[in-house]
């Protein structure tokens, strides 16, 4: 019964928190550029407007893919709130990510195709990092279950600092922020127009956007697991991480996928492996 309540909380809180985070993000970005920026509720207005638009699709695949992406993201967040198994969460969110790419590939548009290829590269970069982080959880707690993390009496960050930095890479890629925003440029008038999102429009773009909110909450939730012993410090950790994320987004230029693979595989996975050896030996 408790699990069911947690699942419902996850499903409802996911998009609400994700949308507010997206709104705050734009607000802070505007502040960096000494502008006022849109209202914090802006992300909700955008999605509501998109939901009310005409349904234009290139083909039926896109409809299915947008829905599967949303459902997979929502299920992974629900599993996270129900304190489920990290590996299961990982596989469910991977299905969603792959379906987004399939939807983009279903259209002939070159922007969509190139965006899909680049998104695949991004998935290739962050998925190994995520799985290594989960292995770190296993080595520390002896279980892949989130429940085990909550029973720790000292924060995970003390044991897995390098894995946290590596997770930061995964977060930047998952949020599609600079320097890793090459599959969907933030600003739609750049060379890729909108990459993977080019051919999604109206209500289906809204579905993709809501799914993206869920994913943001999922990855931020993973970050939160690094300081489960104290809620105040958890909040500080999350706010600090996200602010750093926005700062990086605003100060970095977009890079190529080769640069990303080199950085994430060498640095991100290198740090992860060093941390894992330390955990294993210690």
């Amino acid at each position, binding site marked *: 019964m408790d699990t069911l309540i947690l699942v419902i909380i996850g499903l409802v809180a996911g998009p609400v928190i994700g949308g507010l985070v997206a709104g705050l993000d734009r607000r802070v970005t505007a502040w960096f550029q000494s502008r006022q920026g849109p*209202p914090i509720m802006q992300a909700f207005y955008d999605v509501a407007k998109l*939901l009310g638009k005409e349904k234009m699709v290139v083909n039926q695949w896109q409809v299915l893919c947008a829905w599967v992406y949303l459902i997979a993201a929502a299920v992974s967040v629900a599993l996270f709130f129900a304190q489920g198994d990290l590996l299961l969460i990982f596989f469910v969110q991977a299905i969603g990510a792959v379906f987004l790419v399939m939807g983009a590939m279903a259209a002939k548009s070159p922007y969509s195709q190139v965006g899909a290829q680049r998104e695949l590269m991004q998935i290739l970069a962050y998925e190994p990092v995520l799985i290594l982080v989960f292995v770190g959880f296993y080595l520390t707690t002896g279980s892949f279950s989130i429940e085990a993390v909550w029973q720790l009496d000292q924060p995970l960050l003390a044991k897995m600092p390098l894995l946290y930095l590596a997770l930061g890479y995964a977060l930047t890629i998952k949020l599609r922020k600079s320097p890793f925003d090459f599959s969907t440029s933030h*600003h739609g008038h750049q060379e890729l127009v909108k990459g993977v999102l080019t051919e999604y429009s109206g209500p289906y773009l809204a579905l993709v956007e809501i799914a993206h909110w869920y994913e943001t909450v999922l990855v931020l939730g993973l970050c939160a697991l690094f300081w489960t012993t104290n809620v105040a410090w958890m909040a500080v950790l999350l706010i600090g991480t996200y602010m750093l994320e926005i700062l990086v987004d605003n100060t970095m230029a977009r890079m190529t996928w080769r640069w990303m693979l080199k950085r994430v595989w060498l640095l991100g996975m290198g740090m992860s492996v060093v941390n894992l050896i330390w955990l294993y030996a210690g």
Partner: protein
Amino acid sequence: MFGSFIKKSRAKSPWIMHFDCGSCNGCDIEVLACLTPLYDVERFGIINVGNPKHADVLLVTGTVNYRNAKVLKNIYDQMPEPKAVIAIGACGNTGGVFREAYNVIGGIDKVIPVDVYVPGCPAKPEAIIDGVVTGLAKFAEKVEAE
């Protein structure tokens, strides 16, 4: 309740796309100037998108000629309903000083329906923002009438 939130949201989140039918670029520069910190149209929820499939408002500058009329029509058709069109500058409104040229059809309204005309050569950013706001009011009326 959700339906009324969607209707309200339309005016709060107009994503614009701008298409240059061959102007001197003056109006385009003014359109882009709206996005700078001085005018900061993003505070009204306006985003400049490059994809007609994501756009709500089409800003058109320049005179339509026989070559680009097809392109303009195609872009307009790719925008999902509800949508609004705003013609910007003397050329966009009527053809301007080029209206007599042999290759020029005239203003934007010869090819696609226009909701708001923004005068000026070039149109000032204030006038463009004003035009978008007027466009949104018309847009809301249209939606209410449905």
